[in-house]
């Protein structure tokens, strides 16, 4: 008998605890921002570097607060899939009720998720999506990097003028907006500089591991270099297989190559290749060096440019919130989690949007950032050369 009473008592206790846990206390006001990226998947270092860059910026806020409100960042993994990016951003916007979102690196994923932010009136700052279409999704969408029209032209000029090449073959990722866009821009610019693109543009699909047939076709064209504007995993594998097939010419790439994994995958095969990037780690600029040192102290590894851009994106966001607080403290209060879903929040993000849009001469670690009327940053690009398994600064090209 006693055992049965005890059993009922414990059931009641569990039930009471469960109900008590659900009701909870009213949460204190805070600023919630969201961040989404590919923490896992084919280009996992993109998401991880972004997460760490934002984390570092967050840790530098005095007491982790802005205008008296604590700041919290919710991180979501989109596994490198555009459809998943839409889902996680919807979750950030509707469940976590964030006032701003940082992400993504890959243009395809930024383009997919941007309309969600635009519709909800939530700011989205992409640290490093370079495809033109990203910020075209709406006036709440910003980026902290240059666009591919610039990057593609830079590499075409570099190939034609610095390397003095006249015949460059192209190998693009057919299902990737970034890669296809960059391939087109490069081709146009290179041809206008007097170069030729032999044969047809060869293509692969992200996730492929065997590029031998495409490379065999390219080998038959006998080019002086191969432009392969994809992501680092494929770039590394392509380099290895190209060398196996006896293709000795350099491979040229864009900022999608930027990852600590690139050299691990490609190894020696990448020596003599070039790619464009947002910064060179061996640039003596004190701001950049200070960032690299504190990044290393916090995470115990070198940062890549993706991490630097995420750091800048978060810093710009925090600075703009700070400005909003100084200019209009009432509107700033609308960013707080207690105002989520109210017209005050809408008003606050609108004002915050105007402040970010007016960003001028911001001293970022990846260069001085000024946003143009299309909410794109105008910044110089650097070209890195891979030499003896190291990334070495080669040249800077200004816009």
């Amino acid at each position, binding site marked *: 008998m006693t055992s049965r009473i005890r059993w009922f008592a414990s059931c009641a206790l569990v039930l009471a605890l469960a109900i008590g846990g659900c009701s909870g206390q009213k949460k204190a006001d805070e600023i919630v921002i969201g961040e989404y990226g590919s923490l896992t998947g084919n280009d996992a270092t993109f998401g991880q570097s972004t997460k760490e860059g934002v984390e570092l910026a967050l840790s530098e806020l005095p007491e982790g607060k802005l205008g008296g409100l604590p700041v919290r960042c919710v991180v979501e993994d989109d596994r490198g899939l555009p459809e998943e990016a839409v889902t996680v951003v919807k979750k950030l916007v509707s469940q976590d009720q964030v006032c701003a979102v940082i992400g993504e690196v890959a243009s395809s994923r930024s383009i997919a998720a941007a309309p969600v932010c635009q519709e909800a009136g939530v700011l989205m700052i992409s640290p490093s999506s370079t495809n033109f279409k990203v910020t075209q999704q709406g006036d709440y969408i910003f980026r902290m990097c240059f666009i591919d029209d610039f990057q593609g032209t830079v590499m075409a000029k570099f190939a034609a003028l610095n390397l003095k090449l006249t015949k460059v073959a192209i190998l693009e990722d057919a299902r990737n907006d970034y890669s296809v866009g960059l391939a087109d821009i490069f081709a146009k610019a290179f041809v206008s500089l007097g170069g030729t693109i032999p044969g047809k543009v060869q293509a692969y699909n992200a996730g492929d*591991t065997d590029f031998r*047939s*495409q490379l065999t076709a390219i*080998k038959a064209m006998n080019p002086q270099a191969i432009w392969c504007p994809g992501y680092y995993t494929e770039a590394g594998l392509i380099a290895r297989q190209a060398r196996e097939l006896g293709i000795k010419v350099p491979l040229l790439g864009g900022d999608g190559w930027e990852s600590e994994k690139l050299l691990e995958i490609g190894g020696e095969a990448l020596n003599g290749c070039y790619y464009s990037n947002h910064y060179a780690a061996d640039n003596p600029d004190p701001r950049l060096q200070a960032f690299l040192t504190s990044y290393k102290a916090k995470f115990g590894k070198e940062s890549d440019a993706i991490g630097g851009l995420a750091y800048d994106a978060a810093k710009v966001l925090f600075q703009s919130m700070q400005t909003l607080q100084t200019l209009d403290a009432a509107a700033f209060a609308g960013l707080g989690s207690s105002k989520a879903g109210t017209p005050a929040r809408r008003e606050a993000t609108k004002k915050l949007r105007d402040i970010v849009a007016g960003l001028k001469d911001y001293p970022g670690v990846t260069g001085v950032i000024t946003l143009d009327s299309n909410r794109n940053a105008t910044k110089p690009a650097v070209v890195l050369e891979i030499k003896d398994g190291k990334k070495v600064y080669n040249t800077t090209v200004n816009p």
Partner: protein
Amino acid sequence: MSEFLQQLVNGLTSGSVYALIALGYTMVYGILRLINFAHGDVYMLGAFFGLFAARALHAGVDPNPVKALAVLLVAMAGCGIAGVIIERCAYKPVRRSPRLSALITAIGVSLLLENGGRVVFGADPKFFPQIIPSRIISLGGGVSISNQQIIILGVSLTLMILLRLLVKHTRVGKAMQAVSWNPTAAALMGISVDRIITFTFMIGSMLAAAAGVLVALKDPKIEPYMGMLPGLKAFVAAVLGGIGNIPGAVLGGLVMGIAEVMVVGYVSPTYRDAIAFVLLIVILLVRPAGILGRNTTEKV
């Protein structure tokens, strides 16, 4: 012409890997009339076992042929055991049930291995160390082959010959043929059908493991879902050659590899995965029993 020959070399290499995987499908089908959809994931397991063996032996840092062979054998042994466990735990309990139950179980095992792999190994791709540094060998006329490709062809060919000898000239091979022919009669003749089935799974899984390691050697990116598509394609290759027919699986695999490479090289890479299924549709329309398959009327 040299481009075509080069594509042919590339096609033969990837085809021989499909052939190794297809052999596992065809052997299991021949004996159990079961399409083992988890077979592609056993191939994934093989690549991961190889990766762990290579790391443990430091085969990437200081590569030598003995270590590379050890990596291959460890992966094959690991997958052989995995194959036996899968057969005993998943397929044996449903052996007396309708064939559909076994098929659904196979799909379940496949999902278990993929998602279990994701939990255990992580979703990020891993990179297989260079257990044999690649060297290029020129064949003249602008055609070249890497030593890794030669090893892939050599190892696959050796395994196929060994399998042939095993099936045709050993007692256990003859028992396998007998079970495939008629399990009830074979049991009456004193053959332990259960043991032969387990043995078949073990051999098939070992071949898949070898395929996994060989592919990782050539294309070093490995991840838990890597077995899905090659598994399906190898299944198509087995059907193409005539499912249940061992030389047919080899032929189907080679045809598949070459067709794929030619489509990518001369048509469009978008059709790389489509060509497998186009081949499947064509063969089912033209010769449903497969290239080397025999038309048999089923007793009802």
